[in-house]
């Protein structure tokens, strides 16, 4: 069996196992390449008809291309799409320029997700995170419990040994399930290439720049790249030495710290 098929098999096994264990389950789709890969795997796992809802957390600050792609594919793949928005905070004008970026992410992403989980009484969420993405994610498990406050007690996780993925769930907790945890960025692109998966055009080079990672429009910046096709992206990633999320205003604390120091004349 080749490398990508092995990765795919493992993911599909986890997806099916998760659905078997939790009926109140949904998948989080950011419309980016990773969660679109996960969506593709879910479709494969259930022969084209995903038996659970797909959640998109809409901060209202996403790229127009993302909304278009989301709506097109939801229709084409006949998805049960749920949109999560923190309407209260959006009405109050929450945005990256109001208050801090940290507050903005907290309200429009984390709290919006909390609301969806509560509203639909979900017990488990499938997410497309990968172990190689970010330092802290290296500690993640395939089945990762969160308490009602969304706290992740990573020092006290259930065992995941010898391919035993079973776990029990406490009241008030929900499980996060990460079926593509074992994919690397390079694997994802190779898989996209092999499967001919549709992908948002933001990932392709335009005027010498492309997005390597996408989130909200005000907090993402493109990288220098001339990769116009999936093949060219695969080649670019293969030889790249910089971090995938380097174009994202992702380390929110650092940005806020910088803002605070600058306001007092440092830096």
């Amino acid at each position, binding site marked *: 069996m080749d490398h990508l098929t092995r990765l795919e098999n493992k993911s599909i096994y986890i997806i099916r196992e998760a659905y078997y264990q939790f009926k109140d389950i949904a998948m989080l789709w950011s419309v980016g390449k990773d969660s679109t890969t996960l969506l593709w795997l879910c479709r494969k796992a259930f022969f084209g008809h995903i038996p659970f809802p797909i959640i998109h957390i809409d901060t209202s600050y996403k790229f127009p291309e993302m909304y278009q792609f989301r709506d097109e594919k939801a229709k084409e793949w006949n998805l049960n799409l749920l949109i999560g928005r923190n309407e209260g905070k959006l009405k109050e004008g929450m945005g990256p320029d109001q208050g*801090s970026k*940290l507050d903005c992410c907290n309200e429009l992403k984390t709290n919006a997700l909390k609301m969806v989980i509560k509203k639909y009484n979900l017990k488990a969420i499938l997410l497309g995170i990968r172990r190689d993405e970010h330092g802290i994610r290296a500690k993640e498990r395939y089945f990762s419990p969160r308490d009602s406050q969304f706290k992740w007690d990573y020092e006290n996780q259930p065992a995941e040994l010898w391919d035993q993925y079973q776990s029990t769930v406490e009241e008030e907790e929900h499980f996060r399930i990460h079926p593509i945890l074992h994919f690397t960025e390079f694997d994802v692109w190779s898989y996209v290439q092999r499967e001919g998966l549709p992908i948002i055009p933001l990932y392709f080079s335009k005027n010498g720049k492309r997005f390597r990672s996408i989130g909200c429009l005000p907090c993402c910046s493109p990288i220098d790249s001339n990769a116009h096709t999936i093949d060219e992206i695969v080649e670019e990633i293969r030889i790249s030495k910089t971090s995938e999320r380097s174009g994202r205003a992702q380390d929110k*604390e*650092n940005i*806020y*710290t*910088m*803002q*605070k*120091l600058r*306001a*007092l*004349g*440092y*830096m």
Partner: protein
Amino acid sequence: MKLFKGKAKKALIIGIDGVPYSLLSTYIKNDIMPNLKKILNQGLTLHQMNASIPDISSVSWTSFNTGVNPGEHGIYGFTDLKPKSYSLYFPNSKDIKAPPFWEMLGKTDQKTSTLSQNYCNKISHPYRSIIFNVPHTYPALPMNGILVSGFVAIDLEKAAFPQSAYAYLQSINYLIDVEAEKAKEDKSAFMKSLFECFEIRKKAIFHFLAEESWDLFFACITETDRLHHFFFDASRDEEHPYHESFLRFYGELDKFIKYLYDQFIERSSEKGFFMILSDHGFTPIKKEVYINRFLEEREFLVLKNEGNFYERVEDKTRAFNLDPCRIYIHGKDAYPRGTVRKEEKAALLEEIKKILRGLKGENGDEVIDKIYEKEEIYHGPHTRVAPDLVCLPKDGYDLKGSLEKKEVFGDNIFKGMHTWHDALCILPENIHLSKKPSVENLAEYILQYYTQ
């Protein structure tokens, strides 16, 4: 376990960020702080004190908290470069290499220092501390008591230990800090927010003081530093539109000190330990001085256009500066693109010192007051990562590390700048000082009190 509560040792420490000895003396004399004047008559003495070098809050408070110099605690500023790289990072509480006094007193210290080695075996039993709003204690690390971090705390949940302290702070809509960004847009609104922030801080301090048990209570007020950054020109100028507000703030501070002092007296036997200190002084600002621009003009520093901050340093660079005036030699062994060889370093340091001494302001006055090589002022295992040269300016010239400036001198919205030589401490009068104290000397007096 002590059975007689009345005999328990109690210490209360008040930090007043950025309050200069000279200004406080004037305000005491002019009856702007009548309560503090009375307190000073009860067995306490006001001293002028030297801050840490550099005179930056994160360094100075860490020097106070640990009782050791930066060569031992490892903090040289709000920013630093990761080893062997040009990437900027923000050192936080986890980067401090020496234990603060509350960890020694609480017997929870896992690190050691020259100071802790002298005292750890003499502390008879663990003392419980409440540490409130002290800069550079973020994230809040587990300790014996309660800790609420000060500047630069970002996420309140990570700024509070234990979790119950966070729950309380959240319930009162506690503010970690004023939004200094707002001072640019609306000075009067900013002044108002300084008072509001002080109010909410007092509320939290009074709560912990009254509702929690403690052997040592240490609370810092940081609004004074913000007030000075943006309004220091109002401190002595009676015509200034904000003079009255400035004095009113000090009036509030005076009442706050009285309240804490009275609470302390009520809770402690006669032999309690009371102390007030600031982490640096303040003086009016004449000009900002951009040292990196100066190094660029003299061809010590060459920057390219791509990259963030110090990633722009080119291989031709021989030296660069980090805030406020921490000069690093671009050594071959120390940086990926470094070119300066070991044997060239001494001559290069002399060359840089010479041009810095020659740096003159508009009226031909000197800008740089003191220049130190790292071995002259730092000692300890982390002197290795210290800046090669550190400068202190003449009052009025605020040295900066910006890489973006096109002129050596400039103006900004700030009205005050830090000073090294004019911090203050108020100590029990039985502590006799043979020379002007430095901020890192004070922790030992606290430890002496608990071990005598």
